[in-house]
Each structure stands twice: as C-alpha cells, then as structure tokens.
C-alpha cells in the first residue's frame, strides 16, 4: 500500500483553475465547481457565465450589499464585473447548447470511462426528481469537465464502466478532476493526466477497477 494524501477541496479547485486558459468562457456548476472561481489566476481574463442570464459574473458582494435581482444558479447573491451582460433564459441556454462556452465544470455522482455523466438523480424511489440546467450544460459546452472525490464514502469508485444512476448526458465528459488523479475520457476509455504524489499506478487501477492508459 503506497502512502499518499488526497487533494483537499481547495487543492482540487486550484488544480482545475490552473487548466482554465486566459480568455475562456466558463460555466461553473453548483457545489464544488463554484470553488474554482476563487482560484482563477489573477493574470487571466476568465469570463464566467451563469445560466440565469449573466455573463461576466463577479464574486459575492459583501454583507449588506446583496442585490437579490443579481444571483447565481445556486440562488446566491453575486456581482457583475465591468463589461458583464444580462440576457434572458432562452439566450442563456442557446449560449450553452450552441457550443459557445469553452468549458463547463460539473459535479457528478458517476462518470463512465467513455464520458457518460450521471449527476442529477440517484433514481431513489420516492425521491422528487429535479434536473435544472444540468443536461443542457453537460452536452452544450465545447469541453465538459467533472470535479469529484474519486471514491464514495462507501469505498466505491465514481468513475465506472457504465453508469448505474440515471444519465445526464452521453459521452459528454472529456476530463475528470478528482482528489486522487486527473483523467481524460474518450471512446477509448481513461487516460491518466496526473495523480497525487505517492499513489502507485497499480493502486490507482485497483481503486478504479478499469484500465487506465498512461
């Protein structure tokens, strides 16, 4: 057993942020991906989109300065950067579906080695389904990245051969950033991009249970 330490949420957010190039138009999904905004390198112009009709979204305002007509997809107060713009919902989703966003970063319950995504429902009986913009985002951006802890609390890998949870989109994820390793996924399966120090390739393959090309 090799000795290694998983990336913290903050380190994972930094790892994702490092790969977002200058000039990119990006949508960050609700939850963990939202953290990426705090780690974008200051010397890069990255323009954030929010599904509810904002391009050029800025950070949360300070306490007392909130404007509840200016909120993000998670319904939290945000700000608008100079140069930002507002537009209506059909235009916002046309922006996604039309392939105009460079990157979207989403959370996931499961991702298959070939890039199928399951992130909107665990299919639990009696649960109330809710999808929001997940399906539009997953298939719309030029690149869809997923950000997750590789293993569930029960020790099952979230990167799978075939998703068992209801799908969000088919073959839509191109890259997986996890607390243990980063993978590209394609029709050929997983390719390793990087892994945390001290984690053997053999151990990573054992955890994932799938072939990982180097």
């Amino acid at each position, binding site marked *: 057993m090799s000795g290694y330490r998983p990336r913290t949420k903050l380190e994972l957010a930094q790892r994702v942020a490092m790969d977002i190039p200058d000039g990119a138009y990006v949508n960050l999904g609700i939850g963990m991906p939202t953290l990426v905004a705090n780690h974008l390198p200051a010397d890069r112009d990255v323009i954030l989109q929010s599904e*509810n009709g904002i391009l050029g979204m800025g950070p949360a305002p300070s306490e007392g300065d909130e404007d509840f007509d*200016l909120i993000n997809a998670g319904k939290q107060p945000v700000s608008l950067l100079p140069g930002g713009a507002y537009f209506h919902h059909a235009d916002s989703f046309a922006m996604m579906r039309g392939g105009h966003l460079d990157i979207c970063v989403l959370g996931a319950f499961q991702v298959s080695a070939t890039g199928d995504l399951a992130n909107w429902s665990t299919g639990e009986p009696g649960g109330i389904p809710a999808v929001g*913009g997940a*399906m*539009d985002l997953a*298939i719309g951006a030029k690149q869809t990245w997923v950000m997750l802890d590789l293993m569930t609390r029960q020790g099952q890998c979230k990167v799978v051969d075939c998703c068992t949870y209801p*799908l969000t989109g088919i073959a839509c994820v191109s890259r997986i950033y996890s607390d243990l390793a980063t993978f590209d996924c394609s029709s050929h399966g997983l390719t390793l991009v990087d892994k945390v120090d001290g984690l053997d390739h053999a151990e990573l393959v054992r955890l994932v249970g799938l072939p990982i090309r180097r």
Partner: protein
Amino acid sequence: MIDKIAASATQALAHVPDGATVLIGGFGTAGIPEELIQALISQGARELTVVNNNAGNGDTGLAALLAAGRVRKIICSFPRQADSQVFDGLYRSGKIELELVPQGNLAERLRAAGAGIGAFFTPTGYGTELARNPDGSPKETRDIQGRSYVLEYPIHGDVALIKAEAGDRWGNLTYRKAARNFGPVMATAARYTVATVHRVVELGGLDPEAIVTPGIHVSKIVPIERVATRAAGFRQEGVKR
C-alpha cells in the same frame, strides 16, 4: 388610444379561466411576480397548469397558489429545493402532476411557442429518462449530421405573469439585472401577458435601443411600488430572511 396600464393586478387578472396554462416568470428570488400570483390566488381560477423554473419556495407566492389547491399540473426544471415543502407534500400525496423538463428545453419550448415554431430537435436530454413522454413512451429522436436529437414541442401559455422594471402605456418593457430570466420568452409565449413594473414612463421614455420586450407581446402593465424586499431585488432591513 393604446393604454395597457391596468388599475390593479386584480383588474388585470379578472378573466383568467379555470384550466388555464399560466406561465410564471422568476428564478430563485429574482423576477417572481409576487403581486400577480397573489391576485391570481384571490381571483380563484382552478385546475391550472403552471409553468415556472421551480415549484414554489416557502409558503408565499407560487407555493401559496399550490397550497390553495389551484394547480393541477406543474411544468418545471427544478422542483426540489430546501424550502419546497408545499410542492413536495402535494407531489408525494399524488395531488399534483409534474412534468420535469431540462431548463434549456423549458426556455426553448417557450421561445418556440412565441416564435411560431411547430417543434424542434434538441440535443439536451437525448439518451436520458427525460427523453420520454409523460406516459413513458420514448420521444421522437433523429440523428442529424452525426449528432442525436430529441423532438420537443412548444409550450403555449394562456396567460403569462412576469416581473419587469419599467414600462410605458404601449407595453414596452425593460428588466432589472438577472430578474429578466424567463420574462421575455414567457411574454412572447402567452396569448395574454401581464407584467408588473416599478416605473411607468411616458412613450419615448424608454431608450428604444434598450427595450427588451416590445409592447406587442404585452397585454397589461401593473405598476407596483418598489418596497425593499428580496423579491424587489433588495434586502428588507430588520426583516427575518
């Protein structure tokens, strides 16, 4: 003379029939036409189909309309929220029908209705559970130039209730920040659109380059005082959030 300015929300909504499909704007706290929903509750129309991004929060607004038992069916993208207990209860006891639609398909189906489009092929939802009709049968699909699409139909409204910022007597509208959200597409998708505004201006008072919804899409405008609430964009000082 065209004068779309209504004396009150009650007057503007006097003729909403039972069984109507009502499009209601808003996303989170932003753009919810609270005063119009209140007036619809008082007006009493029943067996409504409501289209909104969500399914009501807390116990006011859309949640109050649901709690009053006026809504037969809701078409939305994200019903389940921390404070959607009214909807949750009705859904679990089988008292309300839910049509779950991916948010972009919802917006585009409304846009299609307003734009006279008979149906459209969208990549969103292909291969998922939401590419099924309410009866469980698969929706029509087609491969076009190597990509797979689902056929989706427009959502026409009998009535749209939306919140705008400023308007004139011809019905031209501007919005405020992200409170715009579904307002402009819903305005086009309904036969009868009512908008609240915080400011009424003279004709010519809105910059023609900045009008978002041209008056042709608007039936009535209801001027509403801007009080400092979250629904008006601002926090109400001293009031529990």
